[in-house]
């Protein structure tokens, strides 16, 4: 009995130590990428669009690559691109073709939790390209006189929902290019925060509908 309890306690301690170890959310490592994708190509986000380089030769292979090919991209891509390009391109100026945080690849439980995390610790996600799928909702706030567009997701029991606001690029004209309330949409944009009065809100800038 004593031994079993001690064994259980030790296992529990090891589990805790492993779990609570600090994982930098922005860890960048190409080893990660190789392990996951085994690819010899790498996509790099640039202000103009994105380019696909061959890792060994460094040559551009294809600069109109569809973003769908890289839909499973890990967050470290953005870090790598930042290292390579070395520019501090602000979020609203960034192109949204390479995806850093792809919520469409996660199960609904994970999506809900991840969105919650984004709301709670927005600093970890600012500047990242986020792709998500949910239902469209449009809200007009008479106090500010603005329209707000959001992509709403629900948790597994469908009793709780949360959403992220998005701001479509000027290519979209309201109301003909905008979807109808309740439509399922996929939106991709750059995560950013802004202040309205005292409150901080999160939004996806330069968003486009897929």
């Amino acid at each position, binding site marked *: 009995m004593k031994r079993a*309890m001690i064994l259980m306690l030790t296992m529990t301690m090891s589990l805790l130590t492993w779990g609570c170890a600090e994982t930098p959310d922005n860890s960048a490592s190409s080893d990660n990428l190789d392990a996951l994708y085994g690819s010899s190509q790498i996509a790099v986000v640039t202000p103009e669009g994105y380019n696909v380089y061959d890792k060994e030769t460094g040559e551009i292979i294809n600069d109109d690559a569809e973003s769908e090919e890289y839909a499973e991209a890990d967050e470290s891509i953005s870090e790598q691109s930042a290292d390579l390009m070395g520019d501090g391109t602000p979020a609203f100026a960034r192109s949204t073709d390479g995806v850093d945080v792809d919520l469409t690849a996660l199960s609904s439980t994970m999506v809900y*939790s991840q969105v919650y995390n984004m709301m709670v610790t927005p600093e970890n996600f600012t500047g990242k390209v986020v792709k998500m799928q949910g239902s469209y909702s449009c809200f007009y706030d008479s106090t500010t006189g603005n329209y707000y567009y959001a992509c709403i997701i629900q948790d597994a029991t469908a009793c709780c929902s949360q959403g992220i606001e998005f701001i479509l690029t000027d290519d979209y004209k309201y109301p003909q290019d905008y979807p109808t309330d309740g439509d399922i949409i996929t939106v991709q944009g750059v995560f950013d925060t802004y202040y309205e009065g005292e409150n901080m809100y999160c939004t996806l800038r330069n968003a486009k509908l897929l």
Partner: protein
Amino acid sequence: MIVKLFMYLEYPFVRYAIIVGVLIALCSSLLGVTLVLKRFSYIGDGLSHVAFGAMAIATVLKLTNQMVLILPVTILCAVVLLRTGQNAKIKGDAAIAMISVGALAFGYMLMNVFSTSSNLTGDVCSTLFGSTSILTLTKWEVWLCIALSVVVVITFALLYNKIFAVTFDEDFAKAVGTNADAYNLVIAVVIAVIIVLAMNLVGSLLISALVIFPALSAMRLFNSFRKVTLFSAAFSVVCALLGLFISILWGTPVGSTIVTVDVFAFFLCWMVGACLGGIKR
């Protein structure tokens, strides 16, 4: 699928969920054996409703740290319900029902009348069913849970023999001079703590499952108190992990998934127990 799972494990909130889930499952199963044998299986439900009521009051009072109110209130109710020991068995179920339903109704009414949140139904639903609360824990909450779980496990390990004596035959224990009342009190406090923590994992309505199923499954298969306790702990941890993984991979609500896994595993244990010709030695 394994690859996807490992990818999910890279998210910190998933790791926190696993740690907390495992600890809560472990603690609740340990005390579950005692509760089931004392015929207090429904106490989980009763106390969790009280905790819900306390949470409602804390929300209305706009307390930033709700634990400050929830824990003491729940502990107090646990003491009142459990402390009277064996003699309370007669009044036990009625008392639990009264307090449980009253707290639930009171809590919900408070939250409605003083609506402080835009998504009231959502908050209530999330507390009652625990759909994703385990995946949205802050680091502080994780550390609190770890600390409390360690305390519970150590307390249980140290008081194991006394808990056995008091559960098996309280009269005898008292007759030979064991302070059964004090140990009943300790058990009550520990249960209250576990239930407040477990609300995060499976939500208020499903807590009883975490307490009952591991103990009952173990009792189908094993005969000595020690083996029953150890197996029920292992059973609970495995089912909680399995439930968590399934819900993360397939997008089902966390609480219900864990309980479903518990139910299936219980039937499995029952059949194994029956097939082995009664009870394994």
